[in-house]
């Protein structure tokens, strides 16, 4: 706006600037609408419901927050999970998402818009992805101008990788964290470009919001120091760099320590040490530059030798202190997830719980194509564009993409961090390519018309000489929109004015033949169209399933498998409110949120031993399992079984992880006992240990009666042991498609046998004696 004001009104260029501003604002609004609406496929195809596992926990926390207020929330000790340990939710949760949705809900309700907490939670992610694409626009604009910014924003609005985590209903930390990540980077670049302390402060606050939102904030606090170091090493140190970095470390660390889940980790764990080290280095460098400024070159040389010798000693001491600190803390000061980032094989070797989660696996090549699609091909072009010319800002995005490519290669989940970088790079690449192609078309056309008008005899080789004049004269009429944007860009960035100008000059020199540019343009548009088609397909088909309700299309119509909610509803209405339900940890969050029952373990996985106990119980024979569950006060055991309808991610397929995790803590459970010649099988070749373990029995109890053979549709085989009875558990509920089976622990039997028992029965009350007699399994 200021740029518009500074120009004399009424001139054509001012008009064009105003027009360009309005147009790009309009485009940005449309990009926001696109980002929001492409994520609504899940609501339209399924329903407005919270998805998957973690979002249910976040939803439950948000409900608690909206009901009890912020102070209760910080002090919340949840006794409905991790029984009998419980969990301090307020101190172990990243509160950013919850507080954001809670605030939105509170504001809406205080102006009498009575949306439910659930609705707000469902639509938080799409709203924030619109914010994220606007933040991408700002960031890319700082790097390469608003044309690239708009392109990057449009790409980010529909990048499948980000859609997969932010469809309506996917109420997870990443939904707001990606916005926070991009916005923090934007403010860093903005500070770097302007050297304004105002933006530096905003940057620290944005960083604080990121720390609140997601554990991925360590990416920021390592990437920015790396960039600072890079700038110093390449001799790009400037006061702007100092202002961009030093306040961020001081303010950011102080603010981060305010978040309960981070607390003193902000200064104690190794993830943050890089930032402090660079903080020291940048001060040393600043000091050196200062001294260099006030000393003569000769004096400076003497001072350098003096300082270097003293500095080495100081550095050694500091390093020693750091090493001592690191060594004194467990796991060398690194958290398990961070360690598995640095050493990709770490988790599979030492932490089966982290390795057992599919999103912690390394991605495959197809998943790159699935998640970022054509961006993968545009990124190299973008990197090249960033090097001509290389500025502080463009070196940052190059560093960003390099680091995120590495991390995405370690964990499929971190593809999400790669996606914005890929969008920024591709946006830059697309915009530069368009600039070149349209520029040469404009030039060729203008020179042609000039030739026709003034000099009919001229040849096609001539244009190179009067390239600049031809462009400035007639270029404006051909594409008003692009040139106006360019004009605005020129006005907006005084800091980069020089570089941009030189770039334009360079571009003008680069003129392609008319036909080649038109073909290239068409190909680029086709590439974009392909990307859009792929994104819409991914949003509609691949990433919109809420996973708590499954559908399958067959020749006789749509089948809906709503078994999870069926059983959660059953649990919530037909069991006692304080009953404990044991299941594998995947279903912990859903059980507490939907059924409101106490669970033994949940998706938080903070206590390995507890999970191993449940894993051991599931892999033990019935009696031993009953004893373990009984000691945990468990009343119901829930298993997920897909053998009837062919649902592959059921408990039998997850069972080996239970054995591994259980065996990790309790050595009497050995993985080899469950495998026949290294193969995991449940048919007649299966080992007796496998056929007698609790998980097998609970899944296949009376399964054979459904079809007479006991054919498991997931494993595609007949089960090994078909007819058996349960002695310590009884079936209390099985859902319509058998996907969820709930068993109740039978009460302990009396030890009295024979005659004495019969006598006892006669004296006991009528109802109990009846139940004993009727029970066929006793």
């Amino acid at each position: 706006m200021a740029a518009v004001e500074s120009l004399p009104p009424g001139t054509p260029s001012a008009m064009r600037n105003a027009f360009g501003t309005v147009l790009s604002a309009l485009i940005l609004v449309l990009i926001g609408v696109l980002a929001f609406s492409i994520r609504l496929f899940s609501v339209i195809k399924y329903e407005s419901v919270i998805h998957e596992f973690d979002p249910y926990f976040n939803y439950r926390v948000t409900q608690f927050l909206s009901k009890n207020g912020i102070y209760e929330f910080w002090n919340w000790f949840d006794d409905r999970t991790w029984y009998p340990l419980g969990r301090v939710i307020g101190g172990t949760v990243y509160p950013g998402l919850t507080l954001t949705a809670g605030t939105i809900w509170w504001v809406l309700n205080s102006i009498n818009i009575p949306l439910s907490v659930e609705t707000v939670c469902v639509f938080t992610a799409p709203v924030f992805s619109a914010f994220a694409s606007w933040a991408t626009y700002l960031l890319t604009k700082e790097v390469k101008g608003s044309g690239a910014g708009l392109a990057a924003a449009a790409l980010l609005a529909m990048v499948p990788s980000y859609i997969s985590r932010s469809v309506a209903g996917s109420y997870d930390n990443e939904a707001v964290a990606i916005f926070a990540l991009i916005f923090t980077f934007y403010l860093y670049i903005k500070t770097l470009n302007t050297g304004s302390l105002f933006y530096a402060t905003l940057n620290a606050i944005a960083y604080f919001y990121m720390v609140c939102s997601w554990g991925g904030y360590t990416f920021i606090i390592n990437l920015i120091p790396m960039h600072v170091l890079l700038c110093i090493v390449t001799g790009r140190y400037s006061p702007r760099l100092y202002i961009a970095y030093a306040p961020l470390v001081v303010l950011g660390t102080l603010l981060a320590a305010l978040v309960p889940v981070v607390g003193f980790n902000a200064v104690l764990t190794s993830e943050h040490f890089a930032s402090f080290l660079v903080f020291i280095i940048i001060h040393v460098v600043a000091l050196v530059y200062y001294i260099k400024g006030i000393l003569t070159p000769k004096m400076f040389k003497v001072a350098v030798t003096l300082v270097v010798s003293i500095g080495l000693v100081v550095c050694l001491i500091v390093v020693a202190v750091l090493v001592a600190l690191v060594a004194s803390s467990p796991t060398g000061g690194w958290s398990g997830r961070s360690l598995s980032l640095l050493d990709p094989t770490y988790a599979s070797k030492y932490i089966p719980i982290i390795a057992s989660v599919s999103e912690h696996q390394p991605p495959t090549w197809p998943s790159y194509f699935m998640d970022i699609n054509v961006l993968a091909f545009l990124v190299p072009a973008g990197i090249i564009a960033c090097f001509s010319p290389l500025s502080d800002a463009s070196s940052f995005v190059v560093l960003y993409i390099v680091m995120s490519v590495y991390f995405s290669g370690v964990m499929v989940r971190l593809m999400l961090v790669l996606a914005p970088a890929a969008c920024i790079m591709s946006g830059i690449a697309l915009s530069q390519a368009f600039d070149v192609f349209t520029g040469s078309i404009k030039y060729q056309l203008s020179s042609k018309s000039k030739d026709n008008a003034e000099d009919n005899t001229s040849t096609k080789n001539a244009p190179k000489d009067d390239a600049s004049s031809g462009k400035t004269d007639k270029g404006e009429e051909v594409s008003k929109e692009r040139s106006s944007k360019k004009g605005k860009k020129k006005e907006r960035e005084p800091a980069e004015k020089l570089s941009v100008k030189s770039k334009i000059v360079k571009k003008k020199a680069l003129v392609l033949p008319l036909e080649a540019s038109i073909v290239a343009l068409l190909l680029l548009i086709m590439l974009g169209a392909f990307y859009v088609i792929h994104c819409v397909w991914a949003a509609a088909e691949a990433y919109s399933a809420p996973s708590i309700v499954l559908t399958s299309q067959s020749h006789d119509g749509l089948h809906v498998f709503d078994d999870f909610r069926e059983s959660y509803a059953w649990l919530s209405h037909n069991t006692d409110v304080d009953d404990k339900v044991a299941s594998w940890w995947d279903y912990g969050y859903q059980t507490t949120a939907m059924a409101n029952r106490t669970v033994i373990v949940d998706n938080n996985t903070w206590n390995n031993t507890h999970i191993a106990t449940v894993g051991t119980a599931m892999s033990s024979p019935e009696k031993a399992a009953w004893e373990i569950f009984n000691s945990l006060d468990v009343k119901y055991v829930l298993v997920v079984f897909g053998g009837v309808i062919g649902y592959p991610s059921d408990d039998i397929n997850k069972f080996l992880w239970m054995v591994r995790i259980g065996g990790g803590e309790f050595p009497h459970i050995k993985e080899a006992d469950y495998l026949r010649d290294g193969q995991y099988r449940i048919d007649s070749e299966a080992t007796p240990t496998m056929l007698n373990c609790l998980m097998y029995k609970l899944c296949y109890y009376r399964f054979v009666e459904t079809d007479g053979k006991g054919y498991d549709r997931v494993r595609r085989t007949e089960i090994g042991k078909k007819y058996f009875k349960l002695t310590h558990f009884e079936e209390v509920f099985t859902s319509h498609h058998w996907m969820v089976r709930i068993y109740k622990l039978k009460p302990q039997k009396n030890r009295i046998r024979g005659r004495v028992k019969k006598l006892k029965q006669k004296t006991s009350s009528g109802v109990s004696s009846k139940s004993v007699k009727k029970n066929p399994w006793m």
Partner: protein
Amino acid sequence: MAARIWIFSVAVALFLSFSSGHDLQIVNAERRIDLSSHIVNAFLTLKVENIGKDPAADMLLAFPPTQIKHLSMVQAMAITGKKKKKTYLPLDVKPTEQPDAPNDTGYFLVSFATPLTPGETVTLEVLYILTHSLEPFPSEIAQSESQLVYYRDSAVILSPYHIKQQTTFFKTPSARVESFTSVDPANRAGKEIKYGPYEDRAPYSYAPVIVHFENNSPFVVVEELVREIEISHWGSLQITEHYRLTHGGARHKGVFSRVDYQSRRSISGSSSFNALLAVLPPKVNSVYYRDNIGNISTSHLRTGFKKSELEFEPRYPLFGGWRATFIIGYRVPLEDYLFEAPDGRRYLNFTFGCPLVETIVNKLTIKVVLPEGSKDPSTVLPFTVNQDLQVKYSYLDIVGRTVVVLQKDNVVPTHNVPFQVYYTFKPIYMLAEPFMLVSAFFFVFVASLAYVHIDLNIVKK
């Protein structure tokens, strides 16, 4: 079982001193009690004669204290004319207290259309409906067992008047009757048990009987139903119904086996139910069926000209004692239900009660949310309910909407009759919220205009 019969009578002198202590006698009484569902319908045909000297304007119906608290509704009609040209004249029935009622007997007062002159006779048809009167025995059953219930009543009609001749029929849902108390003459033929005829029973005669029989009809009990009817003068009526449903029969015991339930449906879970039917108004649209964890996909809507039927299933079959909660919402066009009264007020004409068929509602709350700015609400109902006024804030409300709350316990399908809510409303209020939105946007644009044109820099560049 004759030993268990006892008859008690009360002194005639006492009874004569009643406020409506006319000299009436019942010449002939026939009672048919339908036990085929869990709602007990009793039809009473009474031939009443005035044997006193004064004309009688009303008569009393007596109910034992065990029935009075389960009594959902009493209706009476006078029959005139012969068999083919019978005309029914509804009579006014209201509960009344008698100062010296024996053993907490409850009374209803039936007012005749014209006072009964001495010697005249009139034939009355009385319908009363009992809820929660079938007691499951055994009270807990397994999945494969069928449900047996007790019904307790008297073989003779409890009445403050002398009954010359009376007969009682019990109709059971199936021929399987485990036992019934015998009061001679009593016999059973198929689905019907006949007590009587009994001659000349004194006032307040009582002969308790127990019928123990099989009843596998769905015991659908809505513990609480909140219906919210929101009137929007923009053209629709939004109805949201919150149900808390339970199976009111014998409690389920032990195992629930899906194999048995799916493959041997005829003998397994015969008293359970998993399909419900709601009768909704015609032209209903935007119907949804969900609970607090999301949409429930098992429902089917048939729309018609007279009524729409919504067939739906709870998430899981309901066995004895199991519960389920769900929400049904729908929208109907306003012009079919909102009218303008001659005096300029508007009134809503809607159906009371619960749309589910064959259902007992323990506690029904109907909230009629009037549009913002409505005044002076009043209701017209054929029976008494608790009334209350509340205020609700909905989308962008400032003063809030008036909510008329009607609350009634023990509601049966017979209560599904129209009721009216009258109120005054000025159409100008309809424009309040659009105007607010328009002005909000206007101010946003004005503010951004101002922001663009104001230079906040202290130092001029």
